[in-house]
């Protein structure tokens, strides 16, 4: 073994190269802007590609280190193992703090390179040049993080020949391969609108130009974040054994916060595009979304919060907190400097209008985000100020967010049918009639099938109402435009709405109507629960190099056999349960093996959960992803509505100048 690992040397060199590249990118681009030097500006994309190349090389060297079992490296000693299967050895890169920053860096620099490539013909444009500077600054920060406090290429103790491998929970499901990278792409994706927003503030081109440039980037970032969150829920459901999909855990909340503000932004941006209004608000939302991704990274990686999903405490906390503070302070100063230029020229004529509904939607999403943020950081505040430890858990979040969720569903029903400017009573009566009856139909159906509880019933009724409104819009658009009726921002957005509604209904049903029973069963015994029979056919032992599993064979309804297990991971000494799930369109049968079991036991404690509509959560998620893709297709372009009649010509020309 070499005293200095070749993997570590090249990897660290690559990080240093990336760091210097970003630094040079900033210097060259700023100099180019200052001196109006087009040649300098034209070289900016090259720095972006080189930064991406450096991050990719670092990532490859880390993979190589894990694959070749280079135990001279500290990170490999921490998460590598000679026995880890190839797939989980590959994903081990992002199974701890330093490697996860490396993955983040790869996604971020990939995105910077993509932006540079997309806009390479227009690098002379000052807005784009400043956006590149901001992207390089963010890249520089993460390279610095990876070079300093989160160095994945540090050398480990001498004489180590094996490691424990990744956390057992990160090596028992295929979703470990998809959830983190997709989620990270979503997180870093918001860097693009942030960079353009900052560029708009720096250049003073605070019109609609930067919004239009980043429309699709934002949409894709939001789509990736959505899919990442849903895959995380699925993974948690399949692995953790408590049958839930969402626990309001601080790390889950860290991903949900930018999703909330990002969703608000995707709606309010329409008001600025159509009416030239809400400029400060949109800038604030974009900056808040990016800042929340940094804050989330801080919460997840600083060790300040307790979570099963959090990385162990490292020294990156102060760095991330400083960067977060810096982003917020600089953004506030820039917004303050542009005060008058950001003043919107228009007015919203009536709360009963499309823009009025978007404003209400934004207020609700902002309060929602505030509640989630407050609940997440409140234990920290109490500990800091009162020297007491408290836990804020699911019941708090459920109680506080349920009315907000129901109101948002109501808005989802109303907003799509509202016209811009002002809606008359007749229009509302006409357009809401059939969607409202859809809501009544959904309510009637849920009462017939035995639903109870006002909150769930309200969710089903409002879900039906909102689905009716979305389907009405799709039907009208399809009648007018044929197959294009599901394409474009408005129509694709309706497909996303349907996905959200399905998730809301499925989430409400699975939270409210889960039935559970624990049975102590003897071999050969059959029990009946929720109209299904469960026969315990015995225990078996399976072992490999990594773990020893005791599996229970449970035959459901005399048909297929399902095998919940308890596995002991040899190196970590950790005992974890793995549920077995019979999936169905109406109910999932979720079975876990409880307690300590041995294959010689003649009885076992089996817990059965009957979970309604779980599959619809994933179907809803798939529809949201599909809707996002459809929304990104160019639909029929509409002329923006003038913000105010007298100023329209002036405003239009000013806007055009900046685009």
């Amino acid at each position, binding site marked *: 073994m070499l005293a200095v690992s070749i993997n570590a040397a090249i990897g660290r060199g690559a990080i240093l190269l990336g760091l210097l590249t970003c630094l040079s990118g900033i210097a060259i681009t700023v100099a180019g802007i200052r001196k109006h030097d087009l040649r300098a500006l034209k070289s900016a994309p090259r720095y972006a590609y080189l930064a991406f190349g450096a991050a990719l090389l670092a990532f490859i060297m880390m993979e190589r280190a894990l694959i070749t079992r280079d135990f001279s490296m500290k990170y490999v000693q921490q998460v590598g193992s000679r026995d880890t299967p190839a797939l989980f050895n590959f994903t081990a890169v992002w199974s701890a703090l330093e490697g996860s920053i490396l993955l983040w860096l790869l996604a971020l620099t990939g995105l910077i390179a993509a932006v540079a490539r997309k806009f390479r013909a227009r690098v002379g444009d000052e807005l784009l040049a400043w956006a590149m500077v901001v992207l390089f600054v963010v890249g520089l920060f993460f390279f610095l993080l990876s070079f300093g406090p989160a160095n994945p290429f540090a050398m480990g103790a001498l004489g180590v020949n094996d490691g424990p491998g990744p956390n057992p929970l990160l090596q028992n499901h295929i979703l470990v391969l998809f959830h983190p990278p997709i989620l990270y792409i979503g997180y870093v994706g918001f860097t693009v609108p942030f960079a353009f927003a900052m560029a708009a503030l720096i250049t003073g081109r605070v019109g609609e130009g930067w919004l239009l440039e980043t429309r699709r980037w934002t949409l894709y970032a939001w789509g990736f974040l959505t899919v990442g969150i849903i895959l995380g829920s699925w993974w948690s459901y399949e692995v*953790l054994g*408590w049958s*839930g999909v969402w*626990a309001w*855990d*601080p790390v889950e909340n860290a991903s949900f916060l930018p999703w909330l503000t990002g969703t608000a932004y995707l709606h309010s941006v329409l008001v600025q595009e159509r009416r030239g209004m809400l400029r400060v608000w949109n800038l604030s939302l974009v900056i808040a979304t990016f800042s929340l991704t940094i804050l989330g990274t801080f919460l997840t990686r600083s060790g300040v*919060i*307790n*979570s*099963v999903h959090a990385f162990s405490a490292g020294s990156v906390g102060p760095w991330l907190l400083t960067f977060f503070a810096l982003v917020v302070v600089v953004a506030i100063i820039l917004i303050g400097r542009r005060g008058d230029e950001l003043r919107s020229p228009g*007015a*919203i*004529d009536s*709360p009963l209008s499309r823009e009025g509904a978007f*404003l*209400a939607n934004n*207020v609700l999403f902002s*309060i929602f985000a*505030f*509640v989630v943020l*407050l*609940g997440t950081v*409140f234990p920290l505040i*109490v500990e800091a100020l*009162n020297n*007491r*430890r*408290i*836990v*804020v*858990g*699911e*019941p*708090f979040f459920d*109680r*506080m967010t349920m009315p907000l969720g129901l109101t948002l569903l109501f808005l989802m029903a109303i907003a799509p049918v509202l016209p811009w400017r002002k809606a008359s009573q007749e229009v509302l*009566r*006409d357009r809401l*009639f059939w969607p409202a*009856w859809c809501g*009544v139909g959904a*309510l*009637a159906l849920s*009462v017939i099938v035995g*639903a*109870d*509880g*006002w909150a769930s*019933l*309200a969710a089903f*009724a409002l879900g039906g109402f909102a689905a009716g409104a979305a389907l009405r819009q799709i039907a009208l658009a399809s009648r007018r435009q044929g197959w294009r009726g599901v394409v474009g921002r408005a129509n694709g957005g309706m497909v996303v709405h349907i996905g959200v509604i399905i998730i809301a209904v499925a989430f409400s049903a699975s939270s409210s109507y889960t*039935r*559970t*029973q*624990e049975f102590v069963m003897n071999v050969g015994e059959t029990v009946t629960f929720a109209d299904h029979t469960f026969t315990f056919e015995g225990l078996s032992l399976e072992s490999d190099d990594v773990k020893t599993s005791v599996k229970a064979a449970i035959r459901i309804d005399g048909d297929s056999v399902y095998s919940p297990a308890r596995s002991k991971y040899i190196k970590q000494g950790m005992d*974890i*349960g793995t549920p077995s799930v019979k999936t169905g369109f109406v109910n999932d049968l979720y079975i876990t093996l409880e*307690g300590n079991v041995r294959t010689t036991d003649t009885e076992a404690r089996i817990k059965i959960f009957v979970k309604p509509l779980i599959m619809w959560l994933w179907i809803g998620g798939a529809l949201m992803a599909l809707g996002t893709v459809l929304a990104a297709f160019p639909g029929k372009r509409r002329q923006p509505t003038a913000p105010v*009649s*007298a100023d329209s010509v002036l405003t239009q020309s000013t806007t055009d100048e900046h685009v």
Partner: protein
Amino acid sequence: MTNLFNKKMKRWPAWVVMLFCVVALMLIGTQRDSGPSTPQERIESISQRLACPTCDGESVYESRGAASQAIRKEIARQVADGQLTDSQIVKAIDDSYTADLKLVPGGTGFDALIWILPIVLLIVAIAGLVVVFRRWKAQGALTATDADRELVESALRQVSENRDS
């Protein structure tokens, strides 16, 4: 014919019928809401209100740890006893640990802030919206500038010219 039918359908009596249906269905649905129906479901419901004392932010319901299993056993014993209500069981278990196990912060003292702040924000947001809409309304009433008038006059002139020709 269809349009006429559609228009008639959508008049206010149909909305009254709809409202009646909603109220009736909600009453039927909420009347049969009886909460957790079996002892096991009561145990699950109570365990969702308590934090695992040894885990990283998990509830007793979510956690598979030994401490959570012990608490679940205690909940099961109390439920089987039938002496205490759910809230009393939560309090009894919380009192028996030095750490705060309640997952819902209290409504008094410093902890009350977590309940009050979102409501304050909601009130401020609504008040802000009212103020902004009033300002916009006032602004709307005053924005008929000379340019507006000229624009309207030229449009009207064009209409009358078209009519004449």
